């Protein structure tokens, strides 16, 4: 490798680290993204233009064509996507990265001379890339609703783990036996693809964000392995950064949902078998209507809005902002309480509200807002359930016991907007709804809030 290319890769690697670091602070995030993207552009351009070998023009044209096609499609998707569809898009892009790694593995396998270490990196690249690709595609399908049912394979945990063990054993055999048949490589690819499907298929749609984050981390690892294979530092370090960042994000998400990482990986995930306390009678609920809710909000001094998954599904982020502005104009002090896993993936709610022009200083994180609930007149919960369930504090038998929640029950009045009385994704009753201070405003978030806004306008 020429010295100038090594230097370019070095600069790119540094840009990745600085970019990622800056992505972590609201004030510098935009710059961070730009720096990381520039580093990537530099690495790609350097790879194309600086090398020692003679490359035929046709290959250059093919590379240019591939880059053009990919850029146009990728850019178009990025511009067109709705913010509520963000998890789907991340999942899709992630799958493409994984597929790219698997394909590189296949090509390198055909050139492999039987060196055990090289074969090891190749087969692991193929397996991980394939798992990421098919897993991401299933996650994508589940999120956009094209794969609806939770497919229950009997003993799926045992089947999956056995299957994975089988793949590892097969790969180990390929390495030790020095097998160099293309057919085996394709078989390995197919096995990886099947495992990716088996891994994601039994998991419920609401759990997909954890899966996406985990798969994202895996793509990073696949890129790093490919970096070792092609002795490319920029791929190695870039891949590892993504791998470890993805694991950290996954753990943060698991904490927010009160799951352990082990439970995610080994698939005790999304089990909805027996739910303790599900049949406990909790008393009666009180229904309300938009006009009564409007009156409550109109005469309040402090209001906190708790947006949840239901708000994202109903695409009610614009009308909630309208409500907030209206109340602020009437002299009501309005803030948003954002649970770490609100929305369809962590931080997603912030993106949605930012899209509707909500001032981000009004979005308070859980630890900052929890002490404020006791001085709050009305809390408006929109499409959130488990993240406001007091059972997390006071019912040790509850599956969500210990999960950090928003202490909504400390407020003077609570309005809960939900479509039905159905349980949240943890599948448990929420005694908050039966609290004497709580009134239920049933209906689709967008429809109900629109009515609420028009009632308020008439006051």
């Amino acid at each position, binding site marked *: 490798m020429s010295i100038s290319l090594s230097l370019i890769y070095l600069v790119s690697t540094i840009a990745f*680290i600085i970019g*990622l*670091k800056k*992505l*972590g602070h*609201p004030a510098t995030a*935009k710059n961070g993204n730009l720096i990381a993207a520039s580093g*990537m552009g530099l690495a*790609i351009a350097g790879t*194309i233009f600086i090398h020692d*070998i003679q490359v035929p023009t*046709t*290959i250059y044209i*093919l*590379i240019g064509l*591939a*880059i053009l*096609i*990919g*850029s146009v499609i*990728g*850019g178009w*998707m*990025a*511009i067109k996507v709705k*913010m509520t569809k963000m998890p789907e*898009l*991340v999942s899709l*892009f*992630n799958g493409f*990265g994984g597929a*790219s*790694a698997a*394909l*590189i593995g*296949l090509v390198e396998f055909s050139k492999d001379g039987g060196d*055990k270490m090289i074969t090891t990196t190749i087969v692991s690249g193929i397996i991980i890339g394939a798992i990421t690709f098919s897993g991401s595609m299933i996650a994508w399908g589940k999120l956009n609703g094209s794969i609806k049912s939770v497919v229950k394979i009997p003993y799926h945990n045992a089947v999956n783990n056995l299957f994975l063990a089988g793949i590892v054993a097969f790969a180990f055999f390929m390495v030790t036996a020095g097998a160099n048949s293309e057919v085996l490589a394709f078989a390995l690819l197919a096995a990886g693809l099947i495992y990716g499907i088996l891994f994601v298929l039994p998991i419920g749609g609401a759990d997909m964000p954890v899966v996406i984050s985990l798969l*994202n981390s895996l*793509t*990073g690892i696949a*890129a790093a392995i490919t970096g070792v294979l*092609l002795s490319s*530092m*920029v791929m190695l370090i*870039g891949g590892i*950064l*993504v791998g470890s*960042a*993805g694991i*950290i*994000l996954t753990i943060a998400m698991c904490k927010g949902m009160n799951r352990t990482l082990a439970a995610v990986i080994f698939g005790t995930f999304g089990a909805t078998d027996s739910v303790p306390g599900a049949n406990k009678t909790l008393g009666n609920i009180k229904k309300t209507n938009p006009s009564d809710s409007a009156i409550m909000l109109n005469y309040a001094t402090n209001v906190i809005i708790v947006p949840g998954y239901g708000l994202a599904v109903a695409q009610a982020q614009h009308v909630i902002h309208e409500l907030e502005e209206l109340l602020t104009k009437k002299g009501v002090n309005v803030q948003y309480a*954002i649970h*770490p896993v609100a929305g369809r*993936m962590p*931080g*997603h709610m*912030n*993106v949605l509200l930012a899209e509707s022009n909500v001032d*981000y*200083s009004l979005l308070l994180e859980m630890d900052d807002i929890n002490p404020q609930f006791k001085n709050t007149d009305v809390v408006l919960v929109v499409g959130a359930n488990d993240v406001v369930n007091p059972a997390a504090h006071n019912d040790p038998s509850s599956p969500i016991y210990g999960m950090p929640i928003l202490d909504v029950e400390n407020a003077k009045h609570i309005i809960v907007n939900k479509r039905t009385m159905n349980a949240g994704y943890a599948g448990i009753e929420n005694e908050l709804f039966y609290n004497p201070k709580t009134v239920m405003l049933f209906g689709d978030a967008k429809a109900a809030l629109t009515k609420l806004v028009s009632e308020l306008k008439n006051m």
Partner: protein
Amino acid sequence: MNEWIEFISSNLEITYIIILSIFVGVEVIKHIPAVLHTPLMSGANALSGVVVVGAILVMLNADPDNYFALALGFIAVVLGILNVVGGFAVTGRMLKMFKKKS
């Protein structure tokens, strides 16, 4: 087993780099506020598209008659670039929306 030990001792630099990079990744991400989790996930995802560098290398090094390598390499470049361009573009689009009201 011996081969593995041999590999590690003959590739000590890489081994050090891998271990240190893991720590860098963890430290860089550790204290990120939940507000930025989605853009960060999307940005990290774009970064994993660095695999496109490998795909380009595969194509550059391919024999012009090796249609197998060229075809797979071509698809790999398209998919990798898609991941990179789409990922960074959408991350930028999200971040542009985070603003304080004047």
